[in-house]
């Protein structure tokens, strides 16, 4: 039972997450039917799940909420801000009570009752003014004229009567194409009829003797339907009648009625049809009015719930990340084994083996791509979480904010996304709190009242960039500079670039409080943000213009485990240098490096410091080869050359940890296994450069 409950909670959490994002997008587009449908569906599933587990209190609560959205869905109620606020409050409440399903916590109980009261208020308010809606429905059924010209988007069922004249086919028109066109508009039920021939002599093969009754369930307007027949109008009798009911076509009684006429020369009697539809329609209404007390409805709810979960199962399944890790490991092993098979085959050249080995190579490459793809998650999951944050924070700050996300489909390693949430949340809070001005102040500055915070993600090479852009007041370089001087981070006469000055924001102890307004909040400073991002092997850059806005750019590796690297060799040991830092490669004669006291090389007319890896790694002083390769790598703003014996080529490396024993050798960030089974060590050029500069300092001192 506990296990079942855990499943329930897990599913409920997922549903609630889903609900939240729909609600928030509903806030931006209150008239978006598909979102209302989505909200309704999620609530319905949640209700079904809850009653399935016997959690009556939750089920009842959700049922009441659902009633509101059902009414909105039916057009009986308008979605208002109050309703949304209550729904979001209910959403928070649901998050709590899915664990405390019996409302044992008194505060939960209190909230519960209060929310139910509010919800009932909404439902009653609406039933207090039902006259108009009822009327309009009455009119819809009886006086069809009213609906006909309405261009609203709601789903309607149209009855199309289509009778081509006998000579319809003569000019090459094909009625079936028209019907196919209608069928594309929505769910269709097509009933063909044949005209009765008095005698066989009357039969002319070129005449059209078929006519159709078509029922189409669509949200298109009548005009759209008319357009279908625009070229057939002169040659056929076409009548289009709209009905308000939505699931007429799947209704049993209705089907029975119309199917009885199939292939017969009977026109559907308009009056009879209307009365039938009215009758059936009422039943549909009753069915849609969910009365949870009745057993049949509970069953219905369960059924729908089941159907919906079933759909979910097809689209995605949950897999524990341990299993994924294991799969990744196995795939890497397979790739390695396959590489040795290829190597063996090259030596032995057996044609049969070659085919097999090539096939395995193809398969394992595809398998590798898929396995690696599985650990990538679209960043959207994280973005939707921020929607809520922005909404709540901006409300409490009395600021009007438009939150825009872009590039939500960008995929990142799951573990990166998890670590990234907190820093991003902090940055967005900062933007809202310190960045954006109050609406009045914005107007005074000729800016739109509503501030914009934009979260943008995109790929570039093997990196992913995430930008947080606001159009707020920006950061004043001079204020930061003064602050940095007063804190002793820089001297008054230091000449620093704007970028370097902005970088002070990330210094521990550099409070932005003086720079901008009040709260900063949760004890996570920008220094922690920066640290978190560096832990992900990423970097962060600030760019800001006073009164125009601030842009924070975070650069991250696509995945922590695969990198594109440059495979090089130093003293017969293979090394990988991440391609992301490689700038340019040069060939340099060894004599230029030996005895080069200032450790500088002139490359392309630029003086570039270099690190002699041979020496630094303690290998014997440069081999007898005449020249070395210098790989110029960029490390933040510096460019530094690294000397290696030879460059082998590009290599996609699966980086594996080399273990705790080597924790003092952190300039090696990991190891990767090459095709022939040998190991290449992955250099962390940033650490190597730091190490080298420290070495140099020590040397100078001693």
């Amino acid at each position, binding site marked *: 039972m506990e296990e079942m409950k855990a499943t329930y909670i897990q599913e409920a959490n997922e549903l609630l997450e889903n609900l939240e994002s729909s609600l928030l997008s509903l806030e931006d587009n209150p008239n978006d039917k598909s979102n209302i449908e989505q909200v309704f569906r999620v609530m319905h599933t949640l209700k079904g799940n809850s009653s399935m587990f016997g959690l009556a209190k939750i089920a009842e609560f959700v049922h009441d909420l659902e009633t509101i959205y059902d009414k909105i869905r039916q057009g009986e109620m308008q979605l208002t801000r109050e309703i949304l606020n209550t729904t979001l409050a209910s959403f928070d409440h649901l998050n709590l009570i899915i664990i405390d399903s019996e409302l044992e916590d008194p505060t939960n109980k209190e909230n519960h009752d209060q929310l139910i009261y509010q919800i009932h208020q909404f439902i009653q308010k609406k039933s207090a003014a039902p006259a108009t809606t009822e009327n309009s429905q009455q009119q819809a059924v009886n006086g069809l004229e009213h609906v006909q010209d309405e261009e609203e988007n709601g789903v309607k069922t149209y009855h199309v009567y289509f009778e081509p004249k006998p000579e319809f086919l003569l000019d090459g028109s094909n009625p079936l194409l028209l019907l196919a066109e209608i069928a594309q508009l929505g769910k269709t039920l097509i009933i063909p009829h044949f005209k009765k021939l008095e005698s066989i002599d009357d039969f002319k093969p070129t005449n059209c003797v078929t006519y159709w009754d078509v029922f189409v369930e669509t949200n298109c307007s009548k005009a759209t339907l008319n357009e279908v027949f625009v070229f057939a109008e002169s040659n056929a009798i076409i009548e289009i009648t709209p009905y308000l009911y939505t699931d007429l076509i799947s209704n049993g009684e209705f089907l029975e009625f119309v199917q009885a006429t199939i292939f017969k020369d009977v026109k559907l009697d308009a009056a009879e049809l209307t009365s039938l539809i009215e009758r059936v329609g009422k039943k549909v209404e009753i069915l849609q009015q969910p009365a949870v007390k009745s057993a049949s409805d509970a069953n219905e709810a369960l059924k729908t719930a089941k159907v919906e979960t079933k759909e979910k199962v097809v689209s995605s399944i949950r897999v524990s990340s341990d299993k994924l890790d294991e799969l990744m490991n196995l795939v890497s092993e397979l790739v390695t*084994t396959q590489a040795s098979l290829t190597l063996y085959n090259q030596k032995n050249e057996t044609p049969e083996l070659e085919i097999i080995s090539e096939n395995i190579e193809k398969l394992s490459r595809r398998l590798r791509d898929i396995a690696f793809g599985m650990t990538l998650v679209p960043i959207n999951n994280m973005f939707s979480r921020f929607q809520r944050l922005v909404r709540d924070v901006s409300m409490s700050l009395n600021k009007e904010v438009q939150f825009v996300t872009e590039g939500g489909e960008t995929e990142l390693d799951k573990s990166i996304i998890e670590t990234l949430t907190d820093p991003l949340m902090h940055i967005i809070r900062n933007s809202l709190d310190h960045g954006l001005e109050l609406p009045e102040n914005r107007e005074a500055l000729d800016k739109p009242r509503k501030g914009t915070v934009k979260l943008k993600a995109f790929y570039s090479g093997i990196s992913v960039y995430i930008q947080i852009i606001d159009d707020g007041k920006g950061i004043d370089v001079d204020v930061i500079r003064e602050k940095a001087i007063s804190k002793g981070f820089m001297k008054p006469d230091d000449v620093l670039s704007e970028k370097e000055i902005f970088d002070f924001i990330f210094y521990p102890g550099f409070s932005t409080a003086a720079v901008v307004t009040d709260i900063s909040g949760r004890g996570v400073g920008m220094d922690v943000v920066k640290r978190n991002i560096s832990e992900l092997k990423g970097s962060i850059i600030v760019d800001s213009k006073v009164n125009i806005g601030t842009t924070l750019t975070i650069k991250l590796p696509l995945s922590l485990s695969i990198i594109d690297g440059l495979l090089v060799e130093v003293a017969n040991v293979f090394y990988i240098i991440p391609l992301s830092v490689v700038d340019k490669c040069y060939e340099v004669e060894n004599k230029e490096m030996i005895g080069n006291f200032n450790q500088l090389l002139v490359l392309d007319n630029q003086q570039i410091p270099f690190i002699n890896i041979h020496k630094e790694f303690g290998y014997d002083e440069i081999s007898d080869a005449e020249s070395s390769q210098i790989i110029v790598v960029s490390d933040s703003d510096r460019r530094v050359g690294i000397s290696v014996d030879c460059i082998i080529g590009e290599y996609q490396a699966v980086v594996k940890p080399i273990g705790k*024993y080597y924790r003092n050798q952190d300039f090696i960030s990991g190891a990767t296994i090459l095709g022939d089974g040998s190991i290449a*060590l992955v250099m962390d050029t940033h650490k190597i450069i730091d190490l080298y500069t420290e070495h140099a300092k020590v040397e100078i001192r001693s």
Partner: protein
Amino acid sequence: MKSEHMNENVVNGETKSFLSFKLDSENFTIPVMKIMEILEVPKITKVPQSPNFLVGVINLRGAVLPVIDTRIKFGMTPIEFTINTCILVLSIEVNEEVIEVGALVDSVSEVFELNTNEIKQAPTLATRYRADYVQGMIQENDHFIMVLNIDKVFSSNDLESISEFVDTDSENK
């Protein structure tokens, strides 16, 4: 006399399998349970600027396994690779975390069963090795086999103290 004493004690305690191996001419043993597998020596990639007892890393079917020169660990001369040299892949527990490490040994001798009661306290003064490395000794015919506490020997936490130990030892020589 010692053997008599031993026989009296075989009453209780559990029987475990042990694997014995040689470092130089001395015999050591560790419980078989701790050994994942025994490998021939493959190509070892040395990590630059690492302590000398860390020989490097090897490719263990797709995983990267650090390899330790057990002889240096025990203050002997570095291992000389012969046809008998092999790597014991050990699973050791450090700070409640299980890690795998390869230990280079000169040769593997045999697997035998032993009642834990037969393990004698090693005379503290007589041993050349750090007391916490050695769990005890057993006597076989006329020679002794050292029973190692491998969690201690190979714990990576011990890096600094080991290098000190190695240094002082080499100075003594």
